């Protein structure tokens, strides 16, 4: 298993990296929400191009980015294949009695393109900000502190648990274990999962002890220092403007 370390290139320098993290989160989320629901394939392609342009601006190595996009796209891909058969409409041609419809092909490509756009935006947003900064911006955006803190801890301990998991798995393979669809494997997996959960709870207990011994009483205090610059406002205006233009263009096509 490889680490899903998305902020590996957060230390680079680009317009997108310098973008105020709070403004970045709001604007990018807005862009995702407005592009994901576009119904016109042509416009959807334009938004995909636009998201690629933003990705280029961010200077994040494309190989890294495409690698990170793969799991999401592989998940969506089957629908691109199934939809031409599944959606009813004008039949383009038939294979062994199965009809491929124009609407199906259109809709399949549309869904795929929109998904790619949103994944690319989300990854560019997360990839250009260090995770702790993203979390701190959530604080300053008035997302409830307990929620942010829980998220932050989840993020911190996901790696620890993946490590623990890998260590347990390594110990098992080094004893000749091979995962198969049989009773033995199943009982082993059940025990591993149980152990992982027990260890999660025990880790939580120990983390809580160490937090309490540092004066934690359930309130979270964090230093957050962000300041919006002129360029940030310009960037917000530019991106929101683009989103509006795409929206208006789409409406004009109706």
């Amino acid at each position, binding site marked *: 298993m490889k680490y899903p370390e998305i902020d590996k290139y957060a230390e680079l320098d680009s317009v997108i990296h310098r973008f105020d993290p709070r403004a970045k989160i709001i604007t990018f989320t807005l862009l995702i929400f407005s592009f994901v629901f576009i119904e016109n394939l042509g416009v959807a392609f334009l938004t995909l191009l636009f998201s690629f342009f933003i990705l280029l601006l961010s200077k994040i190595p494309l190989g890294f980015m495409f690698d990170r996009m793969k799991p999401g796209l592989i998940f969506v891909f089957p629908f691109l294949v199934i939809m031409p058969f599944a959606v009813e409409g004008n039949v383009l041609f038939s294979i062994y009695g199965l009809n491929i419809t124009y609407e199906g092909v259109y809709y399949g490509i549309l869904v795929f393109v929109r998904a790619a756009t949103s994944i690319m935006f989300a990854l560019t947003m997360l990839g250009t900000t*260090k*995770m*702790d900064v993203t*979390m701190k911006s959530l604080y300053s955006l008035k997302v409830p502190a307990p929620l942010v803190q829980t998220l*932050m*801890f989840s*993020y*911190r*301990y996901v*790696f*620890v648990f993946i490590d623990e998991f890998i260590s347990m798995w390594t110990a098992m393979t080094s004893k000749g274990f091979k995962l198969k669809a049989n009773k033995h494997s199943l009982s082993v997996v059940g025990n591993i999962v149980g152990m992982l959960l027990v260890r999660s709870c025990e*880790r939580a207990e*120990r*983390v809580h*002890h*160490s*937090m*309490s*011994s*540092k*004066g*934690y*009483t359930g309130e979270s*205090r*964090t*230093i957050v220092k962000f300041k919006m610059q002129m360029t940030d406002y310009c960037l917000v205006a530019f991106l929101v403007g683009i989103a509006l233009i795409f929206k208006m263009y789409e409406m004009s096509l109706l």
Partner: protein
Amino acid sequence: MKKAISITSLNYSYPDGTKALDDVNIEVEQGEKIVIMGPNGAGKTTLFLHLNGIIRSDDGNVKIFGSSIGDMKVEDRIKEVGVVFAEPDDQLFMSTVYDDVAFGPLNMGLSEEEVGRRVKKALATVGLEGFEERVPHHMSFGQKKKAALAAVLSMEPRVLILDEPTANLDPKSKADLIRVINDLNRNEGVTTVIAMHDVNALADLADRVYVLNRTIVAEGTPRDIFSDPVLVKENNLDAPDLFKFFKIMRCFGADCSQTPMSIDESVTVMTKMIESLEGELYLTVDENTHSLVNEIIASYRH
């Protein structure tokens, strides 16, 4: 003067009824260096959780500088006692080293400048300058141990409790940490209480030793404790190699008045012994030497 720590007849049972601590009594003077030894599972961690009030004992039998720790406000408590637990990953829960080290001071309600000053000082103390923005998960085990210590030092506690500070460290990192702890004790008068298994490193960190095995089994200078092979064996302990060796030296005719525990001490003892004999020490082997030696070795062997 008030004792830094005073624990009187402390009892504690786990929720399932198992007794973890049984009538524990401990007294520590300000500025002392205490080591607590005992077998795995002797109740050290439970004791430490009492010392900073995480487990509260209602009868006020844990006092820090004269006040019952259970009655103190959180802000005061963490100014008095800082606990560094054994597992660094449990203590570095924030996303950057800075945030972790600032966590305690922020909870104390200090100003941002003061927090910044303390983080800087604490990181400098443990030798992690420039690590502010590092992600704990990516650091080495030795660095994590140091960061976990810094995250407690930033609260500037008067009593510092450390659970196995040197476990799993390579010798260099171990030496670094021992030096940091001793500097804090010597230069800032911090009282230190340390749980550790490594008897060979103990001499550097202990003025006095408590042997804990659910209850306090023995108390004394390291020398007192290690001189009693029965006590040592019964509590799964061992004596430092040098200590045992100097006991053996006696069988060869070296009449040292003291038994040293560290390299530095052993040089002093040797020199003194030779000088008291007007510059010449004779070591011999006679018919009894080997049976005496074997007796000593056997008395400590598990």
